[in-house]
């Protein structure tokens, strides 16, 4: 108990610090398109980078982007090298023990996708259909369990082969992440993968240190406003090719 309170600087308030410094430091991914990657001009770009800009603008401070990997993003926050993590971070009980989360700002799920001409809305509808999936991926393990036995699951070596199989019509549907579906949509193919149903949902949240209620409220207010005024929706359309889902958890 003593240790815990000693580790958390009781008097510091991160929102005050940020406002005083006039700059907010945000951890963003650099190797995870379309959330964060390097553009042709070597500048960071992506869903998370645009969201970071949105937050900084909403707070009226300058933005300092700190590139992180998925392995070091939590330590960066905990050692206060950054004020926020906007790095396609999913919420889970283990992480909740060490950091806090704002409301969700981006959809992240794996599901079954296919052209509008194929009517599928639940696993049972997969009967008699061919579904392409990357062998051994989360979607493979999940769809193998939930699909009826008459569903023809075709397993391919990697994401690109799975995508090729879908685009060439060798499979009718594709089970993959919404990010991969977005990457296919971005190429503007003749067969458009639209969402049929979700296999596993794990939306992205902004991470911040525990016991920072003022910062949490402020960021949540900006997210809520951005959802209302359509600026987050614009980011979703730009990077994922799809409108922002209305059911993102607050």
């Amino acid at each position: 108990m003593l240790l815990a309170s000693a580790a958390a600087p009781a008097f510091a308030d991160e929102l005050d610090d940020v406002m005083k410094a006039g700059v907010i430091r945000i951890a963003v991914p650099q190797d995870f398109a379309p959330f964060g990657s390097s553009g042709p001009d070597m500048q960071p770009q992506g869903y998370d980078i645009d969201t970071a800009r949105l937050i900084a603008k909403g707070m009226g401070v300058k933005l300092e982007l700190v590139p992180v990997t998925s392995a070091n993003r939590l330590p960066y926050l905990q050692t206060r090298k950054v004020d926020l993590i906007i790095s396609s971070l999913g919420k889970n009980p283990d992480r909740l023990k060490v950091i806090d989360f704002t409301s969700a700002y981006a959809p992240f799920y794996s599901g079954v996708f296919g052209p509008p001409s194929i009517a599928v809305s639940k696993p049972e509808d997969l009967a008699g259909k061919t579904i392409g999936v990357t062998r051994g991926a989360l979607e493979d393990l999940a769809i193998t369990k939930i699909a009826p036995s008459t569903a023809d699951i075709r397993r391919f070596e990697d994401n690109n082969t799975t995508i090729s199989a879908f685009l060439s019509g060798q499979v009718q549907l594709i089970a993959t992440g919404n990010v991969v579906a977005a990457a296919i949509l971005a190429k503007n193919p003749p067969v458009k993968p639209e969402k049929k149903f979700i296999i596993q949902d794990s939306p992205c949240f902004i991470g911040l240190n525990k016991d920072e209620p003022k910062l949490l409220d402020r960021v949540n207010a900006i997210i809520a406003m951005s959802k209302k005024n359509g600026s987050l929706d614009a980011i979703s359309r730009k990077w994922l090719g799809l409108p922002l889902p209305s059911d993102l958890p607050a």
Partner: protein
Amino acid sequence: MRYHFDFLAVLEYWPLLVRGAVLTLVLTFIAIVLGTVVGVAGAYIRSARVPILSAVVAAYVELIRNTPFIIQLFFVFFGLPSLGLKISAVEAALLAMTLNLGAYAVEIVRAGIESIGRGQIEAGEALGMTRFQIFLHVVLLPALRNVYPSLISQFVILMLGSSVASQISAEELTFAGNFIQSRNFRSFEVYFIISAIYLIFAFAMRRAFGVVGRFAFARR
């Protein structure tokens, strides 16, 4: 460095292994039959110097023998549907394997045909045989006998090469291995068993074709 082998973790998937092994053998057998027919027909066209057709066969042989098998397979599987010709993974594998073996067989059989002396053919003509009879009895059978060991080797290479069909989701032996490996992560054991099965198949094929040859090419 200690590794605990757990072959049971792989063997509990034995129905998959059996299905995969059967598909590998079926694919190989059908492709051998069709590919050999292509090879003999092509070799006849080439050695008889049939105008135009001879050039077409030559181009086909060069194209197939100078491109990787996996590319030929992807071309058939991903390319043909774009042209409106949709075929399943197994059909695509079979077509690619037949085309591949056919090209190599053309060259192997042609070498056999060219090993037949001019005098043999003249002897056939002197006996009043038709051109077709001469090709069948005087040229083809002795030619095949001369190159039979090379053909068997090519058949075995074809069988081993069929493992590539796993890349287009044809559920043959390698696919079964990859699938099991993605479920239990026992890659060492999986590929140990898969290797053993391929090895047994290769030896068995050489044996079986050796026996077939002894009867087919018995001196009469």
